[in-house]
């Protein structure tokens, strides 16, 4: 089960904004011999994509035997192509997917990969020490 709790309401569709952008026409026009069909209606030209904040709750299990020690704020956004983008607001890591659960799962994998990459880098390079200290505030074994 995905352990994400929404912290803000999302508005996937705002009809008050889009109705004013609808237009109808019954005219028929001819341009250089090409007759266009009368335009009777348009789909809304713009609509609001999903965009809201949430939390991944404390003690959520991550891949590679890792555990989230503190709740992690995330933002969930819908891409113009319909896919979903989930980003954590601490490390700016992201997950993507065709739907929200898929994007969240991708983010959890990304978080564990990031932990391991930084942990392993410390063996040969101590410049990542601060980065690792910050990660271990949130993620640990």
């Amino acid at each position, binding site marked *: 089960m995905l352990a994400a709790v929404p912290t803000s309401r999302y508005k996937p569709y705002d009809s008050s904004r889009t109705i004013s952008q609808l237009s109808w026409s019954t005219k028929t026009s001819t341009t250089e011999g090409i007759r266009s069909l009368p335009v009777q209606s348009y789909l809304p030209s713009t609509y609001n994509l999903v965009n809201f904040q949430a939390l991944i709750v404390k003690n959520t299990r991550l891949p590679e035997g890792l555990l989230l020690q503190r709740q992690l704020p995330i933002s969930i956004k819908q891409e113009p192509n319909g896919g979903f983008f989930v980003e954590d607001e601490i490390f700016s890591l992201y997950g*993507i997917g065709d739907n929200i659960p898929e994007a969240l799962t991708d983010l959890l994998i990304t978080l564990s*990969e*990031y932990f391991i990459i930084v942990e392993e880098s410390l063996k040969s390079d101590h*410049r990542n020490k*601060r980065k690792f200290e910050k990660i271990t505030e949130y993620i640990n074994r």
Partner: protein
Amino acid sequence: MPVDMAKARNAVEGKLGGQRIPKKDPHYWYKIEVPDPLMPIEIKCPFNHPHHDMTDNIIKSIARTMGITTRFLVDILSCHKDYDDLITQLKKLDRRNL
């Protein structure tokens, strides 16, 4: 503004000299070497989705991970800036929140 995925990959692997970090997952993680005392850069790029563009949200996220502005990263990906510009910028102001 979205960036073509193939172009972005060329910039990361070529211009920035990003070395792919081998992982089990299809994710593409890169390490970009930077001189002392700058902190190393590790970024995840969505090159496992080659037929999509790199979206604005992804570009913003990668830019934050690198410690630069979105505009600066777009300039790197679209040929206006290079590795030396990146290093100069990070020495001047590393935006990574650590």
